[in-house]
């Protein structure tokens, strides 16, 4: 994987982080945050394919009401595999591991993250965890669902719970190492002049994410250890036969796993702030509110986990508290949506690929967020709990939210990462295909869930078939869109136009000071920041008219 990536943009004599050393060893033992980001990118791209394969089998199975493709057992294993891989090995590392690693030190004018060795260790730990996950898959799979609910997982399941649990446990430490690195890096390695309120909002988002990682992940780690101890050594922790309480497991599990959705989506919020501001050619509306709303989400995100347990035997009074707190977290989230929308207002909007993803994100995340309010009201949740409504809500937030934002960010920073432009035409078509496919896949699932279709069933009454067929048809479009990414992005490494330093042109140290691709230590001299972030008003239209308009026709020749 390494050599081709490294050698492709070396036409220019400039020494950069890709061409200064090209051996496999220089990649596998690199301490450079940019290379580690690329290692993460290649890894999660692989796991996204594997997880997507699981999803496509699930959707194929659901084409017919009778369940004639997979046995019930294999169906359980398929949706579990899809969930475990997408959450633990794709969504969680996608924001911090790939874009955070690559962009964050550049954004704050640092030469590297605070602890480069831990950063490399993070990738190896992640790969070790992921290998356990893959091993579990090969050795028969796991059928507990990604939630590992006890006592099924701890006592009764006859599948590879121990291997999968170990995989998720180990992968957790990878995100802990990354989160620790980011917190210290942001505190101690900001360039001179870069005060907290001059930081790009992506940095704020990564800071909030890291806090959630540091305080949440260890709880899932110890929870998985307890399951492994119970299953492997026969300790009695959750076993109801001995007075153990599975609801305790749910408390422990959701104490991490609800904040974990903020680990997944907060980096997306940061990316969207960058994109909307850049392609509206405007300073973001209400910078301070957007920054603090990230922190508020990180904080309140820890107080809401009980809304996953309204129909467990959790006390109704606790349910009331959790329901109220869950409504509360809609406030900072809405602040973000309003501020992004207000940024668009009277902005000089430019429809480049990252912006298409960002606008898609706004609509889809809004639907995902609002349906979350349905689920956090106790009464309605009794009806909607464990139905496709939850599945649709979750995917609107995670795919419509995080994956769209991640792809927007990937396209935004792709020129910086690789030194090559991708093909604008292909990219825009792909973004639209993904948007259409996504909606066709998941909107019918809201209807299905509302009508009572439970999740995790592979046989269903035939009156649901029309909606399931629509959903599966959408999934094939969505899958096609994702596959296009795997074609044109790698291709752009070889035949893409060489990227200028600042193709958009955007503000921020990574665009204005660092080269594309950056030199091994990012900056020749430590940059000094003298102004606030997103000062687009200051960058007059000359920039915009020359660079953006001139680049378009050139690129189109490549399409």
């Amino acid at each position, binding site marked *: 994987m390494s050599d081709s990536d490294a050698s492709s943009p070396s036409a220019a004599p400039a020494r950069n982080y890709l061409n200064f050393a090209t051996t496999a060893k220089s990649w596998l033992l690199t301490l450079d945050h940019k290379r580690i980001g690329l290692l993460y990118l290649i890894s999660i791209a692989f796991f996204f394919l594997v997880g997507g394969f699981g999803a496509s089998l699930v959707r194929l199975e659901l084409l017919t009401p009778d369940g004639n493709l997979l046995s019930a057992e294999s169906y359980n294993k398929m949706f579990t595999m899809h969930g475990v891989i997408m959450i633990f090995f794709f969504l969680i590392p996608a924001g911090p591991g790939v874009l955070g690693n690559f962009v964050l030190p550049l954004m704050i004018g640092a030469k590297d993250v605070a602890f480069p060795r831990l950063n490399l260790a993070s990738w190896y730990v992640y790969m070790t965890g992921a290998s356990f996950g893959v091993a579990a898959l090969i050795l028969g799979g796991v059928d507990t669902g990604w939630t590992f609910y006890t006592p099924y997982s701890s006592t009764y399941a006859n599948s590879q719970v121990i291997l999968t649990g170990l995989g998720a446990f180990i992968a957790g430490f990878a995100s802990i190492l990354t989160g620790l690195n980011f917190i210290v890096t942001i505190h101690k390695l900001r360039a*001179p002049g870069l005060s907290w309120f001059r930081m790009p909002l992506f940095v704020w988002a990564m800071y909030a994410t890291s806090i959630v990682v540091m*305080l949440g992940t260890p709880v899932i780690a110890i929870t998985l250890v307890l399951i492994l101890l119970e299953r492997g050594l026969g300790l009695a922790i959750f076993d109801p036969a001995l007075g153990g309480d599975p*609801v305790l497991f749910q408390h422990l599990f959701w104490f991490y796993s609800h904040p974990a959705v903020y680990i997944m989506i907060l980096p997306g919020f940061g990316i969207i702030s960058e994109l909307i501001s850049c392609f509206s050619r405007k300073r973001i509306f209400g910078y301070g509110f957007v920054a603090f709303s990230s922190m508020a989400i990180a904080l309140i995100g820890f107080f809401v986990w*009980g809304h996953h347990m309204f129909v467990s035997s959790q*006390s*109704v*009074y606790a349910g009331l508290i959790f329901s109220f707190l869950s409504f509360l977290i809609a406030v900072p989230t809405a602040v973000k949506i309003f501020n992004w929308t207000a940024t668009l207002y009277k902005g000089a909007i430019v429809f480049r690929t990252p912006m298409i993803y960002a606008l898609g994100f706004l609509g889809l995340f809004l639907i995902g967020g609002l349906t979350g309010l349905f689920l956090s009201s106790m009464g309605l949740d009794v009806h909607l709990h464990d139905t496709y409504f939850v599945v649709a809500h979750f995917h609107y937030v995670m795919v419509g939210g995080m994956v769209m934002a991640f792809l927007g960010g990937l396209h935004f920073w792709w020129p910086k990462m690789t030194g090559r432009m991708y093909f604008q035409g292909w990219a825009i078509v792909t973004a639209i295909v993904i948007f259409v496919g996504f909606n066709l896949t998941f909107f019918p699932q809201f209807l299905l869930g509302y009508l009572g279709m439970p999740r995790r069933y592979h046989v269903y009454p035939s009156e649901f078939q029309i909606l399931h067929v629509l959903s599966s048809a959408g999934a094939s479009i969505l899958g096609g869109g994702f596959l296009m990414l795997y074609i044109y992005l790698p291709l752009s490494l070889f035949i893409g136009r060489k990227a200028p330093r600042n193709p958009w042109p955007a503000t921020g140290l990574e665009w204005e*000071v660092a080269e594309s691709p950056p030199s091994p230590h990012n900056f020749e001299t430590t940059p*000094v920041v003298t102004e606030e972030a997103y000062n687009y008003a200051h960058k007059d239209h000359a920039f915009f008219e020359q660079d953006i308009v001139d680049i378009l026709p050139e690129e189109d020749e490549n399409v």
Partner: protein
Amino acid sequence: MTDPSVDTVAEAIPAESAPLINHHISPVTLYYKIFGLLMILTVITVAIARVDLGFMNIVMAVTIATLKATVVALFFMHLKYSAKVTWVAAAAGAIWLCVMLALTLADVLSRTWIPTPEAWL
């Protein structure tokens, strides 16, 4: 956004963060005093536990343990002389643990407020 005229790091860094060594070095006698205090607290906690105080037993035990932990953090771990952000990091762990305990106990302790229907037993 950047100012190319400032080309060395030294010029850009405020003077007060430049000195190489500014750590606080506690005198050895302080460590022995803290050690003595911890020992005394250990004896007290064992002694109190042997008296039946009902509900207060657990309260006393946890209070003394918290006191001991605070002393260790402040003096042995030099938290007392550390930067504010270090205090925040240390407090965050403790506060989040309290949040987790409090909200979970909100569930456990209020479950029996509504009696279980006879027919379910």
